[in-house]
């Protein structure tokens, strides 16, 4: 254990650059020209990426966690003779945090670059980069914090930035409502993290992940400290389960899992680069990161691990089913993000933290690429619609229920045939679609296959659900691609689209390349395949491989090559059904939405997202309002107002008694004075003691 390793002192520069960028753009952004403002924001993130790369080469095979203590923060004195709780500003550099740093700053930098083009005409340009830089700062704090408190500062900070950026176009009612929803739902989850922190402090007397001489929480968990405690007091086992479940509850909020996923699809109200950065590549993976970071503790509770796996795979299936019928290009991607995050948790629950983190990585590549591509499509459609509106005065179209609004640039029913207009966008999105579908040799194939294999080892049921979800994923992604890029243009606007500027296409090309070849970082170690080193696993082994492999519920020993072939076949089948199905119908919906039965009840149920929002409305919002009304009408109007009015009433009544003494006659007053004087004189003459 290297504490405050001077060699890694430069780690503090990583969050510093985005913070400086935030301060400059925040205070002087409106005074600066747009180009300077955007350049500061982008370069700040790339500077951090540079430092991250330097740390990467320096860390190399060094598997020990390196702690960089910046400053003391606070000390809570111990009670009953226990040691004081010391919380410092400490940054943690190990393979896990470094991986996240590289994803956040690398992908984040590309998205900043893209934003300089995407937001070029927006009046809130510098505000946008202010928020983005602040987000990067908090996200880095989240992954680099060496204690749960600092991690939580980042955790809340990214939630704040998410709120600010979803509601970036705050003059839209739907955007501010979505921002509020994200804030509230995340708050519900964050309570879990807080409770987990309290319990960790209560039972283990520390909030540090790693500490001197193995005193950190994770050191205790990894070095049998917690295991020994459990052996001594079985109640600690329950405490570990509750702590980890509470923390996982927070993760379901931040990472949009059942039952707290509802905010993520609505979060698409934000500008598209935000969706790519926060709601696909980085922030929503914070939950997966936290579980992987604390895996030594999580592994000690088999119940928590099972819950994580079940919630993960259930979310994967559930979100995929909704994604199959959405018509908003960004909503399809949002539900697919929920679904893919479900895969990551399913991996964590099976103890395959490395596989989960690898899916975080590849997902960051292909989902960022897909979102940025969808942004390019929306940008092009918006531009075409704008040109049309300039040519002729337009009124808001009257749209039949369930039909496409012809002025909605995000509705894939207005698109079609964009392939020839946006060739670069099409190509990069296509490879990313193959990646997310899990087709060899694209990156998602490697990560998803590893997850499915590890789940199959635990339970064939989970594997089966994962496999079905993989097929559905392949289907709905190809459906989205077909309706957007193939067939004939469905509107005049779709015919008049143009490819975006190089600032927007170059990040697409880089991300598309990563999405294509990123998978080779983790070549599967399976007999019968050509052997290459699994670089990713090699790199992450120290940080994310299970501490207690013997505690994992491994029941099956399936043949890896067979599973690999099955999942590949399912993925290809899904893509093929979508492509040829939609080709035959020229983009009209098939399977779940037959053209002759658009109101089929099951289709309607799925289209309305299984009515979960409505369910939550009636389960929580309506009772909440009812309780508020009761409190208002009974407690506030009767009790509170009663006390306040009662105080005044009492004063009036007491006054009514004493006011009769005030006769207004001078002689009465004079007489009172005389009596008083007599009493004083008598008292003085005879002494107080004798009278009273």
């Amino acid at each position, binding site marked *: 254990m290297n504490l405050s390793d001077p060699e890694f002192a430069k780690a503090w520069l990583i969050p510093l650059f985005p913070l400086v960028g935030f301060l400059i753009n925040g205070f002087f952004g409106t005074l600066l020209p747009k180009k300077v403002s955007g350049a500061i924001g982008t370069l700040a993130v790339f500077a951090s990426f540079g430092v991250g790369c330097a740390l990467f080469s320096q860390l190399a095979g060094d598997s020990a966690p390196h702690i960089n203590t910046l400053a003391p923060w606070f000390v809570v004195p111990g009670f009953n003779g226990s040691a004081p709780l010391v919380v410092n500003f400490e940054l943690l550099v190990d393979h896990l945090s470094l991986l996240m740093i590289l994803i956040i700053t690398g992908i984040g930098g590309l998205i900043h670059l893209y934003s300089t083009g995407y937001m070029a005409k927006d009046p809130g340009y510098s505000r946008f980069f202010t928020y983005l830089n602040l987000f990067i700062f908090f996200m880095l704090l989240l992954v680099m914090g060496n204690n749960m408190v600092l991690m939580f500062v980042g955790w809340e900070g990214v939630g704040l930035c998410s709120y600010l950026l979803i509601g970036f176009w705050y003059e839209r009612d739907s955007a501010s409502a979505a921002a509020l929803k994200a804030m509230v739902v995340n708050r519900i989850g964050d309570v879990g993290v807080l409770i987990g922190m309290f319990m960790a402090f209560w039972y283990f007397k520390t909030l540090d992940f790693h500490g001197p001489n193995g005193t950190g929480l994770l050191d205790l968990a990894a070095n049998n400290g917690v295991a020994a405690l459990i052996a001594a007091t079985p109640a600690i086992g329950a405490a570990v389960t509750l702590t980890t479940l509470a923390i996982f509850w927070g993760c379901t909020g931040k990472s949009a899992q059942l039952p707290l996923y509802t905010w993520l699809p609505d979060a698409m109200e934000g500008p598209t680069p935000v969706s790519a950065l926060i709601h696909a590549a980085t922030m929503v993976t914070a939950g997966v990161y936290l579980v992987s970071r604390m895996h030594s503790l999580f592994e000690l509770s088999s119940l928590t691990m099972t819950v994580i796996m079940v919630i993960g795979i259930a979310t994967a299936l559930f979100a995929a089913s909704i994604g199959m019928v959405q018509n908003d290009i960004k909503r399809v991607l949002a539900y697919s993000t929920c679904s893919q995050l479900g895969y990551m948790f399913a991996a964590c629950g099976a103890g395959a933290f490395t596989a989960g983190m690898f899916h975080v990585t590849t997902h960051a590549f292909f989902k960022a690429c897909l979102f940025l591509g969808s942004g390019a499509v929306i940008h092009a459609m918006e531009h075409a619609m704008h040109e049309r509106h300039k040519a002729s005065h337009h009124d808001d179209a009257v749209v039949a229920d369930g039909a496409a609004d012809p002025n909605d640039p995000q509705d894939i029913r207005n698109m079609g045939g964009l392939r020839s207009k946006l060739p670069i966008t099409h190509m990069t999105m296509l490879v990313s679609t193959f990646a997310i579908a899990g087709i060899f040799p694209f990156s998602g194939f490697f990560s998803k296959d590893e997850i499915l294999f590890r789940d199959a080892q635990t339970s064939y049921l989970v594997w089966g659900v994962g496999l079905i979800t993989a097929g559905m994923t392949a289907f709905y992604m190809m459906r989205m691609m077909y309706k957007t890029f193939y067939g004939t243009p469905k509107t005049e606007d779709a015919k008049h689209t143009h490819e975006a500027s190089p600032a927007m296409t170059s990040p697409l090309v880089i991300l598309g390349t990563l999405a294509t070849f990123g998978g080779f970082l983790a070549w599967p170690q399976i007999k019968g395949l050509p052997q290459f080193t699994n670089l990713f696993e090699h790199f992450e082994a120290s940080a994310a491989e299970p501490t207690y492999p013997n505690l994992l519920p491994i029941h099956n020993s399936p043949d890896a090559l067979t599973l690999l072939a099955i999942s590949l076949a399912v993925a290809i089948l899904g893509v093929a059904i979508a492509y040829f199905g939609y080709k035959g119908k020229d983009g009209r919906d098939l399977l779940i939405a037959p053209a002759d039965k658009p109101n089929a009840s099951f289709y309607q149920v799925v289209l309305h997202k299984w009515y979960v929002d409505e369910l939550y409305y009636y389960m929580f919002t309506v009772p909440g309002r009812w309780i508020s009304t009761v409190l208002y009408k009974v407690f506030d109007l009767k009790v509170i107002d009663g006390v306040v009015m009662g105080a005044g009433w009492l004063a009036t009544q007491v006054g009514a008694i*004493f*006011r*009769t003494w*005030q*006769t207004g*006659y001078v*002689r009465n007053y*004079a007489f009172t004075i005389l009596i008083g004087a007599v009493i004083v004189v008598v008292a003085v003459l005879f002494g107080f003691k004798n009278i009273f």
Partner: protein
Amino acid sequence: MGNVAVHTPLEFYLILSAILFTIGTVGVLTKRNPIIMFMSVELMLNAVNLSLVAFSRYLNDIGGQLMVIFVMAVAAAEVAVGLGIIVTIYRNRDSINIDRMDTMSG
């Protein structure tokens, strides 16, 4: 020794002072004309003044007589203010009956 009889004893002064004070008090409590009440108050003040002077002489302490000078000065100022108020009340109400001055009644 022949000089002793010419001194009036202190008690005489004090009894006179008490009588004057009582007359003043009764006057204040019973009269409805504020002018007469004023005079009664002055009587009470001067009763106290008398006892102060008597004690001053008896104790051979000039302080009591000094204080009387002050009391008289303050009483003169007070009379000026009080009479001013009475004149104003009369102008406003055409009456100075003290029992009708009961606007402060609760």
